[in-house]
């Protein structure tokens, strides 16, 4: 588990990108420097008799319209490309960085006017800005590159300015000024070093852009002027003789693509390695653990059961790519009109239980065992299409945070009406009418008006009422409420709980109420199942559970709860924390934190008569544990 720091660019995936890129660029530089020695011919020497020839032994890449050797021109084009990139990027840095630092440091009118000019330049297509500057300066390589330098200086200007603005407020800069360092000294000594990393990244981006722009300008005839060999002018010739010598377009084009691609890819590597020293955490090696099967009591079928979950087992894929078990041996039932509370600390598997029932765990996980019986039908055996029908119609869900569980892009009325139309097949007007009725039913005044509101225009409590209205729109048999009051203001919580109670009385649905708050559970639930590390450790009617908890964990929870204890300090807490999935002990999962743990707890414990503890009868943990 030791995180070790690796040099990013030494990792194989990066080397595979870097080695070819560096090779391409090295070739470019060598060709540029030694062009006169390497090229087989003079790039300007015409030979009209052998014009427009395809590649041959004499001319490896053929000849152009004037019989000039394409390979030689390509090699000399490397020199132009290198000069172009260096000149334009250099000018951009030299113009942009000082001005950016100055206006960032100085602020005020200087800053305002400069930034408006920059905005104006950025609002025009870059190539047009370059064209305008060339109109003033005239055509030709160096003038065109000066134009590009001015064009791309805006990026450097913004970059330098933003770094200065950020650093200016830093304590060390302020203190340097307090001790009387001159502004230029502060700029150079303290701020400039911080510009270097983003500057390097911006330079790689600019080099790629310059190469493309130079080719474009030369191509349309206002950059490098013929007969000089630049890749852009070569492409210009190629475009003219497209039908006679289609091959002409390939060498310069491929040269541009290879060069720009290499620069960009190298830039990516540099950006990544500057951005963060990659930490590679070695995933914990070990067995993919699967909880042993265990002979728990079967769930007793009751006459009016709506939901019966039997032996549910769920695995999810962890970030390391390993599958870890998050639920095991999970069984419970809920009758019509009954509310079962699923209580436990975060990470105990409460939420995933709700999602597993609805088959909504997503691609990252899967149900590997057990049954989810809804009205006697195993939902796990249903086709995807049938399951879609079940959702909303038979089972609905209310989520923790109403501000995220309602779609911000649609009005709340639209989101309820959509369900009514899709699931109940209502027409638009009827759906609209019922929507307003539902919103009214969940206690929101001015329902017709509120239906037109967007989620962000409602308070959290009101948004949760909307979410409840939507969940109940098709009159489901089972409502799963996943911490529905946790994200709400304390004063609103009680109102929402009352609403749930009223609605249950009216609609008669069974309710699975997931919460970590025992007081909330005591308020609304008929029975409570306490979860710990992916399994139920105790299930009991609410009064019995609070009066005589039979599992040491339940007892610990009760005494740790400010509502559960009589308020006398100090508030006891359970030492330690819930073991994460994948780290469960083989026997009783609570044993590591349990004051009563013995050797008998080292084996897997079944849930017998509603409690998963081998010593439950002898220790009687009781309230005061």
């Amino acid at each position, binding site marked *: 588990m030791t995180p070790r720091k690796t040099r990013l660019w030494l990792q194989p995936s990066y080397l595979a990108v870097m080695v070819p890129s560096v090779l391409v660029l090295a070739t470019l530089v060598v060709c540029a420097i030694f062009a006169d020695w390497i090229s087989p011919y003079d790039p300007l020497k015409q030979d009209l008799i052998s014009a427009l020839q395809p590649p041959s032994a004499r001319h490896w890449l053929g000849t152009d319209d004037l019989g000039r050797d394409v390979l030689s021109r390509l090699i000399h084009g490397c020199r132009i490309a290198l000069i172009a990139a260096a000149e334009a990027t250099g000018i951009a840095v030299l113009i942009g960085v000082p001005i950016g630092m100055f206006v960032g440091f100085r602020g005020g009118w200087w800053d305002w006017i400069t930034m408006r000019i920059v905005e104006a330049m950025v609002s025009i297509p870059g190539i047009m800005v370059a064209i305008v500057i060339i109109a*003033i300066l005239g055509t030709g390589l160096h003038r065109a590159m000066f134009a590009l330098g001015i064009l791309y200086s805006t990026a450097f200007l913004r970059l330098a300015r933003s770094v200065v603005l950020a650093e200016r407020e830093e304590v060390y800069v302020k203190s340097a000024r307090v001790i009387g360092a001159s502004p230029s000294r502060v700029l150079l000594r303290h701020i400039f070093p911080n510009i270097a990393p983003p500057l390097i990244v911006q330079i790689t981006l600019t080099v790629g852009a310059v190469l493309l722009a130079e080719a474009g300008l030369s191509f349309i005839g206002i950059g490098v002027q013929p007969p000089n060999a630049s890749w852009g002018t070569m492409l210009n010739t190629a475009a003219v003789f497209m039908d006679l010598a289609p091959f002409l377009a390939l060498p310069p084009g491929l040269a541009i693509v290879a060069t720009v691609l290499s620069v960009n890819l190298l830039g990516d590597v540099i950006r990544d390695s500057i951005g963060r020293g990659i930490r590679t955490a070695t995933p914990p090696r070990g067995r993919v653990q699967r909880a042993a099967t265990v002979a728990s009591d079967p769930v007793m079928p009751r006459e009016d059961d709506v939901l019966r979950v039997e032996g549910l087992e769920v695995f999810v894929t962890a970030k390391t790519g390993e599958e870890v078990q998050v639920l095991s041996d999970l069984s419970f039932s809920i009758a019509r009109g009954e509310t079962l509370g699923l209580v436990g600390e975060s990470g105990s598997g409460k939420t995933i239980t709700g999602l597993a029932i609805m088959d909504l765990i997503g691609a990252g996980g899967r149900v590997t065992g057990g049954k989810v019986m809804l009205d006697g039908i195993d939902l796990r055996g249903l086709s995807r299409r049938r399951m879609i029908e079940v959702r909303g119609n038979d089972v609905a869900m209310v989520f923790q945070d109403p501000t995220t569980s309602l779609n911000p892009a649609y009005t709340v009325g639209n989101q309820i009406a959509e369900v009514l139309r899709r699931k109940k097949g209502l027409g638009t007007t009827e759906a609209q009418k019922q929507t307003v009725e539902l919103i009214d039913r969940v206690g929101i005044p001015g329902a017709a008006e509120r239906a037109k509101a967007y989620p962000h225009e409602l308070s959290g409590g009101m948004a949760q009422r909307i979410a409840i209205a939507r969940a109940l729109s098709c009159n489901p048999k089972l409502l799963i409420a996943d911490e529905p009051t946790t994200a709400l203001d304390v004063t609103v919580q009680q109102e929402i709980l009352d609403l749930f109670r009223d609605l249950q009385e009216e609609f008669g649905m069974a309710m699975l109420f997931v919460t970590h708050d025992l007081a909330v559970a005591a308020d609304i639930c008929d029975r409570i199942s306490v979860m710990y590390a992916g399994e139920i450790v105790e299930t009991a009617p609410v009064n019995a559970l609070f009066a005589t908890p039979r599992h040491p964990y339940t007892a610990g929870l009760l005494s740790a709860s400010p509502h559960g204890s009589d308020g006398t300090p100090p508030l006891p807490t359970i030492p330690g924390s819930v073991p994460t999935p994948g780290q469960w002990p083989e026997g009783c999962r609570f044993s590591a934190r349990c004051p009563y743990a013995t050797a008998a707890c080292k084996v897997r414990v079944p849930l017998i008569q509603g409690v998963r503890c081998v010593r439950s009868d002898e220790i009687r943990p009781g309230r005061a544990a």
Partner: protein
Amino acid sequence: MGRLIAQRLLAMLPLLLIVSFLTFSLTAMLPGDPADLILGDRATEAQYRMVHERLGLDQPFLLRYVQWLQRAVLGDLGTSFFNSVRVMDAVAQRIPATVSLTLASVLISIVVGLSAGVAAALRPRSWIDRLATFGATIGQAIPNFWFGILLAGVFAVNLRWFPATGYTPFGQSPLGWLSSITLPALALGLSTSAAIARQVRSAMVGVLQQDYVRAALAQGLSRRRVIFKHALKNALIPVVTVLSFQVTVLLGGALIVEHVFAINGIGSLAVAAVRQQDIPMIQGIVLVLVMIVMAVQLCTDILYGLINPKARPA
């Protein structure tokens, strides 16, 4: 929505003023006397004075700017230095080709980018996902005019499916317009579409993990409906914000790609003007392009307000 548009329009005014001022300053930045450009080397003193008077060069700079701006607002961008063509007429004649090429490429990049992006988001690491990533990387490195040459070589010269050069106005023949615009629009649009696909993909992947997507699924809505109604609208929000930038890039690219297909658009007009240092023409072209860019920005702002309720002024 009316208020949003008014707000945006008002916010654009200062920018337009600055751009117009910078463009106008071009005459002042030009080394030498513009009259030299017009008259050539052998001109008499009287001719000089006449030209100066006609161009208003004997008046103060700021006054000339105000007068020029007044005329520009009324649609008069002056006349070319070199022939008596009115700048407005020349630009108006060339603009349809450039704009329709840009629009067609925008359309291609959005349609292709959107579908590829959504497909890639739904199936991470599938072939379409890899293709979008690969395409975006390559697309950044390919000069679109070279891509245009390749397309023309294959589909116009070899297969003869499309004309290799020229532009047919839509009014003249809609089909002819379509076939003349297809290759250049593909050359421009495809590389941008890969970039858009990548943006859509990353936005979509983020949105698909949101609670409201799960909540919509929990409500029993079909996966398709959740993806294309609930997720897509939210995923488009960040995409729309960069759309106007992409359109600006495409407009710039159009000026060069026109050259490949010998389309007489703004690009060739600008190149000719640059070679002759025809300042009024360049000023006119820049102003018109800026207006187009601003119109695009306004459209994307409106679009942004439409899909993102939080962006609407209360």
